[in-house]
């Protein structure tokens, strides 16, 4: 289980913001934690999948997509803030995400 420090939190936040800014072609200034990826940015699930792949490579994570999928069914993440929080949980728990309630 990885320990999430301030540095990692900042890094994840920066990557997520840059990712959605680039993918959805909006200025970073227009984004905030409350922005809804689907409704406000016309994003889709493939974007989350892509983001997940980025973090899997960056942090060498041992996590199966379907583990994340099962978690998302119980805990939907639709805003930028929620996606950042979920990403931090994935980095922290990897496949043990399945054990979380």
């Amino acid at each position, binding site marked *: 289980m990885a320990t999430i420090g301030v540095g990692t939190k900042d890094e994840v936040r920066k990557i997520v913001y840059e990712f959605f800014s680039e993918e959805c072609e909006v200025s970073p200034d227009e984004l905030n934690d409350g922005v809804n990826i689907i409704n406000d940015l016309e994003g889709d699930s*493939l974007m989350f*999948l892509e983001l997940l792949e980025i973090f899997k490579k960056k942090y060498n994570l041992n996590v199966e*997509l*379907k583990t*994340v*999928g*099962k978690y*998302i069914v119980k805990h939907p993440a639709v805003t930028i803030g929620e996606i950042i929080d979920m990403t931090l949980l994935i980095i922290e728990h990897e496949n043990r995400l399945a054990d979380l309630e």
Partner: protein
Amino acid sequence: MRQEKVAAIFPAFGCKYLGNEREIIGEFSDDWTNLSDRAARHVRFDTGELAACRSGDFKDELQSQYAVYLYSCAVSNLVKRSSIRTDYSAGYSMGLYAALYHAESVTFEQGLDLIHTAYQNIKKATVKLKFGIGVISGLVRSDVSALIAGFADLEIININNKFSFLIAGFEENVRKALSGAREQGALNTRYLAFTMPYHSKFMDDAASGFNKYLQSVKIHDPVCPVVSTIDQRLVTSSAEVIKDMTDNIHRNINWLNTMTRLIGAGVGAFIECGPGKSLYKMAKFIDGAFTVYPADALRELIRSDRVLTGVPATTSGI
């Protein structure tokens, strides 16, 4: 100047539009207007709905097919008039007809007739039963295969990439499978607004009827190889074109393998000729060193100094 092979790839109907395709094409030519007029003269094509529907969310499946074909042919014309030489052509699902137009195997009007006739045959074959198509994202192929194993009617009709699959069969079972996929951990599932199970075994009669029609159509050998999405062979003759168009109606397709085959043949640049950027998005989960240029990259592609120049393709090189 780049010296890599270039492929023109064509999306299917049902893709989400950018909304400004007309303006992008209009910056370079009158193709969109001209082709729209020609389509309206040739088939029952609703130009009013085309003009009003910028999102691509057409109510009528046939009109939706015509519209994507029209946009795709307009972009194909643009690409050909620029300095871009394409070595291969490939069409995703019903994008095949635009791929054949690009390869000069069929004319614009013939493509419209092919779309219309295929649609009529498919509609006739499905008139008595309720079918559906769904997309599953976030599982791998073995998971999806296991998921549908208990349903005799369900098939994976297309593999988009490593993590995205289209399934088709009876509506009720498609919905059950999608629900099961979410329980299995799929990141997303979506029941599509299509009523006909394209590329499935339920289309055998439709394929047979379509093939009879194809025997009467004057089809030319492609000027550049068209890659079959069914078995990834190179289609280089009119006889093979007819076979591929027939197979495309009732056999499963595999876009992942098609792209992989092209990448393996040295294609480093794919030009997505059509509305939206669905193929660009799918390609993000396909391995290899390549770039996909969707419609909104056309300006950059055509106006920049970075001219794409294909190298001669060989039929044995793929």
